[in-house]
């Protein structure tokens, strides 16, 4: 396989407190160009912390994040260096992922400007070059560029936020639970649109979600996180069809399916704890 575009080595994150809470406990993985990696786990497993580490919004206590062969610098008080705008993120809450007081056209333009600064004028990929073209690409009306975020639904806002992030021509797009606040019937669709656009850009994607049923449809590889560690990793379909780690099994068994069978999901006794050894498929 080619060189990974983003790789994480033994990242550890502690949140201050007495005693400090270990949110991420030695996590390593790679993201390659053109692949969708799904990171799944339940609340408190450290998956959103990983998103902040990967974008430089949070400095890990130990470990490194390598982006294109160099260590990613955490965001300080100053601005971000133009060459590290190649890692972008779509956030969870469609209500706050866009500035309510700016037209969406100029917010998408921010992304285009970032791409111009990083890649220079020589960049001539077949990417939309105006906010209007981007809106068309995500299936919206170019006229919408003049409107403000409040006139769009949650799903539309997440599409716009995706366009804004992708307009920056990132090498990696991170989605931090980008669909979990949306209506159930739009979740799978928006996840698909986001991942397809990202791959079409020639970028890699890390899709973070607690919803395994959706993630397995769009992800090539899965990382299952539990208590700050990755406990199982491998091809998405393989893990979905035949989970090996006891935690993955419990997670899959607990998902209720909309099949009308009135089948109760498998209950694990409260307080059950699982081994932290990793299974690589």
């Amino acid at each position: 396989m080619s060189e990974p575009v983003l790789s994480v080595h033994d990242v550890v994150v502690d949140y201050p407190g007495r005693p400090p809470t270990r949110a991420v406990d030695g996590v390593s993985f790679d993201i390659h160009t053109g692949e969708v990696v799904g990171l799944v786990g339940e609340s408190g497993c450290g998956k959103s912390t990983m998103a902040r580490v990967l974008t430089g919004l949070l400095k890990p206590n130990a470990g490194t994040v390598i982006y294109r062969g160099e260590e990613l610098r955490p965001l300080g008080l100053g601005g971000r260096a133009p060459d590290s705008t190649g890692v972008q993120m779509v956030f969870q809450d469609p209500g706050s992922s866009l500035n309510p007081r700016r037209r969406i056209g100029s917010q998408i333009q921010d992304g285009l400007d970032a791409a111009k600064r990083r890649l220079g004028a020589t960049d001539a990929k077949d990417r939309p070059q105006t906010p209007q073209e981007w809106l068309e690409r995500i299936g919206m009306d170019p006229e919408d560029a003049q409107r403000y975020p409040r006139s769009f639904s949650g799903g539309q806002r997440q599409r716009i936020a995706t366009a804004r992030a992708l307009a920056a021509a990132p090498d990696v797009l991170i989605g931090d639970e980008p669909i979990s606040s949306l209506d159930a019937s739009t979740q799978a669709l928006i996840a698909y649109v986001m991942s397809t656009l990202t791959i079409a850009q020639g970028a890699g994607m890390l899709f973070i979600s607690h919803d395994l049923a959706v993630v397995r449809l769009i992800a090539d590889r899965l990382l299952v996180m539990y208590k700050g560690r990755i406990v199982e990793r491998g091809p998405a379909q393989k893990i979905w069809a035949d989970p090996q780690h006891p935690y993955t099994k419990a997670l899959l068994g607990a998902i209720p399916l909309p099949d009308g069978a009135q089948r109760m999901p498998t209950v694990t006794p409260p307080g059950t704890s699982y081994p932290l050894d990793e299974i690589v498929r």
Partner: protein
Amino acid sequence: MSGELNIKDLKLDIKTHDEVTPILRGVNLRVEAGTVQGLAGESGSGKTMTGLTVIGLEPATAVTTGEIWLGDTDLLTITGSSLNAIRGQRVGMVFQDPSTSLHPQLSIGSQLTDHMRYHLKISKAQAREKAIAALDRVGITGGSSALSRYPHEYSGGQRQRIAIAIALACDPELVIMDEPTTALDVTVQAGVLALVRDLVDSLGLTVLFITHDLGVMSAIADRVAVMRRGAVVEEGSCEQIFTDPQHDYTRSLLSSLPGSATGPRTRDDLAHLAEIGAGGES
């Protein structure tokens, strides 16, 4: 315990200064005693407002018409202190987020016993005894020591169990559960769903279970009503709704949902869905 609920042509408008916004446009729903009636729908469909209106918690600016029969009482005609007697005693309610529905600074014991003593007019000792039994029933152990604890000492799933214990404390005929598992992790959700099913089967409880999550709905509901734009578009047995939906809206809802009979199973299915513009979003 009867618990049969019959909602007839329930309409609800929200009146602001000069605007009238219709929220419910004629909801008809019959909930049989001793069953779990699911109420499904996307955000803005009016499912939550229906639940709130049954227990008399609709906003002050709401204007309602229609009938809500619990046994032989029309809940819509009842006001003031007689409404209080119904709320919490004949009808219990469980909300989505137990971290805000439980009072953070009152002990579990006082949250459980206060309304029991108010409704049932029993002594403190009797109420404590009943409270311990109620906690035991929902799987919160520790007996009397649990009563002196506070919500923050429990996990999210345990808090929701406590919220259920509070809703059940006065032996209500009907319990309204509004997205009771939405804030929980799936592994915790499985336990709470199993508890609800167990309570229904063992106590003969009647539950109006409101959720947008059709997976959860399929697991817990005996019958399912699908709401859209303030009205029930389809009602039927759980099996019929999921395997043989009659209404176009139910069909499109299910076809966009991974795991349903007609839902996407592969990436290519999603590509097809995206092409035909499914998802009900415009």
